[in-house]
């Protein structure tokens, strides 16, 4: 939310400014309170110095500096965490990608752009990127589509909606690996799903072993796992749409589809943006499902970028090349997120 405010040119600055002031005043009361508890004298000294704080220069700890210090101390844990566990590893990955690192022999040699040359010449890369794209597109379309349909269906005051909301949300809180292992049993050739199909008289395919069905299975398992989260976000957005708009549209003779397309979709578009970014980024990082269900097979059909990276680094011991692949993954995720963020002005309501 703050991000959006800051992005607005002129008023944004003011909003941010007023935010600063608000934070400042909170800090003020805070320190005043502590000064008070320490003794009345402090409060008087403080009060005398405060108005002339800007031009004084007599004491180092002016109100502004004190407030700044408190502010920095408050953000320090988060900042430090980001530095240590986000920025430092990111820098290290870039560093490793310029090296050939043989873990067993314990050698670590600078090789310059060799790993990047290898990336461009990698005969598997095309298939891997194709598989990744297929997985992401399939996942985003199915996940957002299904989540929206479920949210619209469950956004009605009927008996049992709470029950169904719980049912569809519950996979989100199930452990990912447990969920995937259960699906592995269901999707086996002699598993539950084909048993069900056999009752209906149909002969199901060998889901996880067929070239086309393996990818489909992985996508569907992932969609069913996470659709509940997007559904809840959509539900919250749907309930924020004012009822009078629908009434007015109905009076004007708009049908159900027009109301959905012209009122609902524009008004929940900020949520659509949010869910699509989360889902796209999440889809590019899929790992456990692939590792459990198909291990990248059959052939290379479900070897997505993250799994390929894992294979190269941790199974084949090409840590340098694995780091290079993760730089590629980072670039792709960053690019897609920026593109989505830029496109929001075109279609997200309330954005100018």
């Amino acid at each position, binding site marked *: 939310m703050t991000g959006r405010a800051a992005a607005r040119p002129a008023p944004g600055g003011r909003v941010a400014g007023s935010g600063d002031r608000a934070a400042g005043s909170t800090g003020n009361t805070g320190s005043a309170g502590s000064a008070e508890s320490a003794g009345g004298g402090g409060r008087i000294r403080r009060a005398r110095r405060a108005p002339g704080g800007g031009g004084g220069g007599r004491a180092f700890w002016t109100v502004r500096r004190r407030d700044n210090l408190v502010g920095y101390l408050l953000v320090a844990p988060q900042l*430090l965490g980001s530095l*240590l566990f986000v920025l*430092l590893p990111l*820098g*290290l990955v870039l560093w*490793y990608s310029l*090296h050939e*690192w*043989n*873990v*067993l*022999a*314990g*050698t*670590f040699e600078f090789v310059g752009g060799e790993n990047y040359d290898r990336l461009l010449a990698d005969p598997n890369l095309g298939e891997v990127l194709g598989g990744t794209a297929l997985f992401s597109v399939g996942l985003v379309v199915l996940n957002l589509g299904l989540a929206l349909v479920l949210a619209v269906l469950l956004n009605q005051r009927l008996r049992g909606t709470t029950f169904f909301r719980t049912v569809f949300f519950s996979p989100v809180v199930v452990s990912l690996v447990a969920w995937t292992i259960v699906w592995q049993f269901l999707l*086996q*050739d*002699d*598993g539950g799903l084909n048993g069900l199909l056999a009752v209906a008289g149909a002969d199901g395919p*060998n*889901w*996880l*072993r067929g070239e086309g069905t393996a990818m489909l299975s992985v996508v569907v398992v992932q969609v069913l796992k996470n659709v509940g989260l997007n559904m809840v976000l959509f539900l919250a957005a749907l309930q924020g749409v004012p009822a009078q708009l629908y009434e007015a549209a109905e009076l004007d003779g708009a049908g159900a589809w027009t109301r959905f397309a012209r009122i609902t979709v524009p008004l929940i578009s900020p949520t659509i943006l949010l869910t699509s970014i989360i889902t796209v980024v999440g889809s590019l990082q899929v790992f456990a499902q692939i590792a459990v269900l198909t*291990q*990248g*097979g*059959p*052939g*290379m059909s479900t070897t997505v970028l993250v799994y390929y990276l894992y*294979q190269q680094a*941790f*199974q*084949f*011991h090409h*840590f340098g090349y694995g780091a290079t692949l993760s730089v590629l993954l980072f670039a792709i995720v960053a690019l897609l997120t920026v593109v989505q963020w830029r496109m929001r002005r075109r279609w997200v309501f309330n954005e100018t």
Partner: protein
Amino acid sequence: MRPFGKPAAVALAALLTLTACGGGEATPAAQGPQPLRMTIWTSNEAHLKLFNEIAAEYKKTHPDVGEIKFDPIPFESYTTTLTTQIAGGNAPDLAWILESSAPDFVSSGALAPLDETLGKAQGYEFGDLTPSAVKLWQAEGKLYAYPFSTSPFGVFVNTDLLKKAGQKTPAEMIEDGTWTWEKVAAQNAAVEAETGKAGMVVRDFDYKGWDNLATVWGGWGAQAWSEDGKTCGFDSPEMVEAMTFLHKSIFTDKAFPGPGTTADFFAGDSAMTITQISRASLLQDAKFGWDLVPLPAGPKGEYSVIGQAGLGVFKKSANAAAATDFLAFFTNPANSAKLAAYFPPPRASQLTADTMAKSNPLLKPGQLQKVVIGGIEKGVVKPNHTGQAELSQTVRAALDPLWQPGADVKAVLDGVCAKIQPMLGA
């Protein structure tokens, strides 16, 4: 050099200073009892109990050694986890090593040579180790890991299921000289047709772990690659013939359960399974009659395949000398005999049916003689190569099209060679 070292140490130092919870020096200057850590892939209670007993005995005479910790890592992710520990600067002092990653570890220089310590150790009888068992673990005449387990593959047979399907027992067939792949496949197809249970299960293959198929194609004299590891063997006439047999047995005769189907022999779901003798412990409470016999003969006659596991010491370990000394104790003749209960020893003097029967109460001396002792003598080790993980994954992907009804066996196998020959030649 440890690339993680510097930046990570700086970051950690910064963190520790900031949070003021520094734990003093990272490594107490080499004084006081030094702990040892050995990574293993078994978490079997009986195994761990035996290891801990041996370690406790060692510590009695070696007060300079602190706690000796056996650290189990799941088998499926063993090598990956071990490598990650090494990359993270947290390598163990000793580690079990799988035969598939043996060439990588042995040739990398990560392991400390053992010859000197083992040769000097009192009563060790270093010369007792059989040459065929140590071959995989040597480089340039030096031994880099002790082959603590040399375990042949055999066939466990559910004799009750065979009887139900009106088939002869393996003992009778061996007697008649008809224990051949052709007859065995027919038996398994009959079991499938008569009882609805699965036939022959190549354990741990599951249409992914293709190196386990060496226990089948060995009968045709086929090899994944040549002895020197430079030429692909998948397109050889022997391999095509063996794989054609396998494909027909799976998809036409249904003698093997197909892809995506699970059947556990030890739960009574299948007539036969090919696996190592250490699995016999799973038959402790078996509700069915069973037998253990050698692999069936193929068109090229009798053959045997062994799986191996080595135990090595990391050269970089601060306690490498103590670790090597412990290894010498852990594998001396007395302890080797104890370990033989689960892991067939590489010592010629202990490879007799009588010694082994003492520690394997579930198996009869006759079974041990035929499968284990006969197997180790003429056994071929499962496929292994430097860069095995990448090769293995490439072969797995290229073999996938074979596991469909109506696959063109020759074309698929040519495809495997097209993919891996550049990796072998390099």
